[in-house]
């Protein structure tokens, strides 16, 4: 009852026997799909070709741009080269001249000036101390002298003189240490003879 109102299913259609032979030639029938197969067959290669062409174009443009930069850089180099060559030649001459000036400078500063040292020893010498001999050598200075007064007091003055030399601001720039070498009373003169060694600082190692 009311079975004719029911929607027929596909299985029903298949099950229904064909009432005439199917003469359709599917290869010649038009493509009636919403997006036709031809679109994919032509579109996909076209898309790939366009992408590749764009990529190749970008690379070629980049190459073109780089070649342009190459030309510009080469032109700049050609423009700078004469001035640069001249500058290099001048600099070589400058170096040759500079070596001589540096050598003279090194020659002059390599040794302490005796007059400055002698002047400093004269300025720092206590009144009761007489310097009899000052030897200035490469590694240091030997001071020989005598001290007036009582022997005990003379020894104290010798120690005090060593401290004066050690703490002298001017001498500190060039000396490392001051040491007593000897101190002996001299019965003939009634004084105490002494010897002090002032060691120079070691020259800075060349880098």
């Amino acid at each position, binding site marked *: 009852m009311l079975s004719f109102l029911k929607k027929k299913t596909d299985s029903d259609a298949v099950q229904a026997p064909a009432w005439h032979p199917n003469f359709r030639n599917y290869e010649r029938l038009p493509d009636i799909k919403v997006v036709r197969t*031809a679109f994919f*067959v*032509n*579109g*996909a*290669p*076209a898309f*790939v*070709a366009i992408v*590749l*062409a764009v*990529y*190749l174009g970008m*690379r*070629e443009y*980049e*190459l073109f741009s*780089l*070649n342009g*930069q*190459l030309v510009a*850089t*080469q032109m*700049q*180099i050609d423009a*700078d*080269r004469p*001035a*640069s060559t*001249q*500058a*290099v030649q*001048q*600099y070589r*001459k*400058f170096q040759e*001249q*500079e*070596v*001589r*000036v540096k*050598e*003279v400078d090194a*020659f*002059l500063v*390599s*040794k302490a*000036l*005796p*007059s400055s040292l*002698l*002047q400093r020893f*004269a300025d720092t010498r206590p009144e009761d101390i007489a310097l*009899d*001999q*000052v*030897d*200035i*050598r*490469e590694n240091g200075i030997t001071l020989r002298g005598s001290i007036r007064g009582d022997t005990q007091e003379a020894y104290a003055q010798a120690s005090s003189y060593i401290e004066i030399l050690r703490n002298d601001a001017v001498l500190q720039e060039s000396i490392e240490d001051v040491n007593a070498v000897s101190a002996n009373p001299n019965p003939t003169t009634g004084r105490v003879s002494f010897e002090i060694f002032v060691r120079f600082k070691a020259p800075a190692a060349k880098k």
Partner: protein
Amino acid sequence: MAITNEQLFAFIRKNPIGVGCGVISLAIVGAMYFRSGNLPAVELELEQLTNEGARLSDNVKNSALLKEQLEELTAANAAIDGRLVSARGRFDNQRYFTTLAEASGAAIVSQSQTAEPKNASKGGFVNVPFNVAVQGTYPQVMDFLRRLEYGEHFARVNYSSVSKVPNDTARDNVIVTLNLELLGRP
């Protein structure tokens, strides 16, 4: 299931755009392959040229005052040359010490050019060695030393000894013995 030529041509005739694009794609890939080495090579060349350009540009930039500095240095060296002693000019060199002593009021006790200078330095200088002994009052000897240190010729004192003159009746004379070098030309 092999494809016959007829089927292939039929496919081409049916899909000319697709086949054409495929061929173009292959051609592009081929071109990319053959030109793939160009870009790195050009980049490398550009980098090298840029470095070279920067070096030359720096040379030009840094040499802005080089000419003036070179002129100053050349003038300084000319002045230095004028202050050098000649290693062979023994008499002239001895006269120099005598002149200093006369100017300071001290007296030359002895002087000698001790040895032949060694080979010239890189700058073309030789150190000409001397032994000089000078006697005078302390101020005179100090004046002699200062004239020597800051005098016409470049001097370097390697050893100096200042001591009282033995048996000096005036008791104010000192003698200074110097081992020194004057900067000279061979």
